[in-house]
């Protein structure tokens, strides 16, 4: 095990421990929790055994493990971008409704020539 593996595996191990503590402490979104745990575990396994990504890549028709990781990141980036865009758009609509409500509540009638 080299230095990089030692450092990153320690960090990932702590992240997984933290997830377990969070799970035991109280209510968590199970889907999001499971996704996070899978990401930490996946990263830990790929770092601990660098040859594994290459073998997985070759099994799906990609030559190099690095390419598999690049493609996975591009796909994840698109999914996450779209998720945040949708969330931002929903938030913007809700904010607009609040602003609209206030605007209508505080409507004022102007008077000709008033200043």
């Amino acid at each position, binding site marked *: 095990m080299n230095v990089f593996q030692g450092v990153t595996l320690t960090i990932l191990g702590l992240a997984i421990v933290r997830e377990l503590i969070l799970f035991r402490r109280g209510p968590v979104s199970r889907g999001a929790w499971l996704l996070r745990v899978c990401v930490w575990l996946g990263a830990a396994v790929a770092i601990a055994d660098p040859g594994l990504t290459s073998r997985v890549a070759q099994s799906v028709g990609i030559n190099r493990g690095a390419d598999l990781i690049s493609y996975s990141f591009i796909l994840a980036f698109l999914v996450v971008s779209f998720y945040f865009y949708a969330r931002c*758009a929903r938030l913007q609509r809700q*904010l*607009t409704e609040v*602003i609209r409500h206030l*605007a209508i509540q505080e409507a004022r*009638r102007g008077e000709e020539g008033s200043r």
Partner: protein
Amino acid sequence: MDTAPVEASPPPPTRPGNPDVWVVVAAYNEGKRLGETLRRLCERYQNVVVVDDGSKDDTREVALHHRVWALRHLINCGQGAALQTGIDFALARGAQVLVTFDADGQHRLDDIERLVEPVQAGRVEVALGSRFLGGSVDMPRSRWLVLKLGVLFTRLFSRIKVSDTHNGFRALSRRAAQTIRITQNRMAHASEILDQIRQHDLSFCEVPVVIRYTEDTLAKGQSSWNSLKIVAELLLGRWVR
């Protein structure tokens, strides 16, 4: 670029103070030009709603110097959002016909009656202003090209045949205003309205109107490149609900 004679046939007689007609004006940083627009509007219409879309200048104060309803968005939300606010307010106060009118003086007052007439007569639910049937003064060629591409895009995307897609001058019946819900806060709302007209099978007609371009309105108005942003907003808006 003048696309047609500016002075069309004389306008039909107006009905001053027609209480059924509400004119909705969305304004953002229009302090300089809004006063003249409102002065002319108030001469003929008793129900005018100005929605100040979070302006940084004195737009709201200018509006309050006239006999209009002045509403204010606390932050800038966009023209589509401002129009929907004005429409909601007018509907709550019993509007039967709603007209959307630009704050910057691009639209002619005489054209309002032409737009309102087919709606008030019950022939259509929506009357859409068209500068390509009416006319435009000093329209740059680049704007003309972008608008024509917009027409083509709308025919493909919204499957509605109109000659002018991004004209903010339109009249809606009460039913149409209740049916159409603008969710596109910014400039894509014009395409969204056309989309909803088709989706809800609302009857519509196009009415010739004249749009007058000036250096001011061109500088402040949307740039031709914004059309790409509008297309992106519209496409993403369809996926994101």
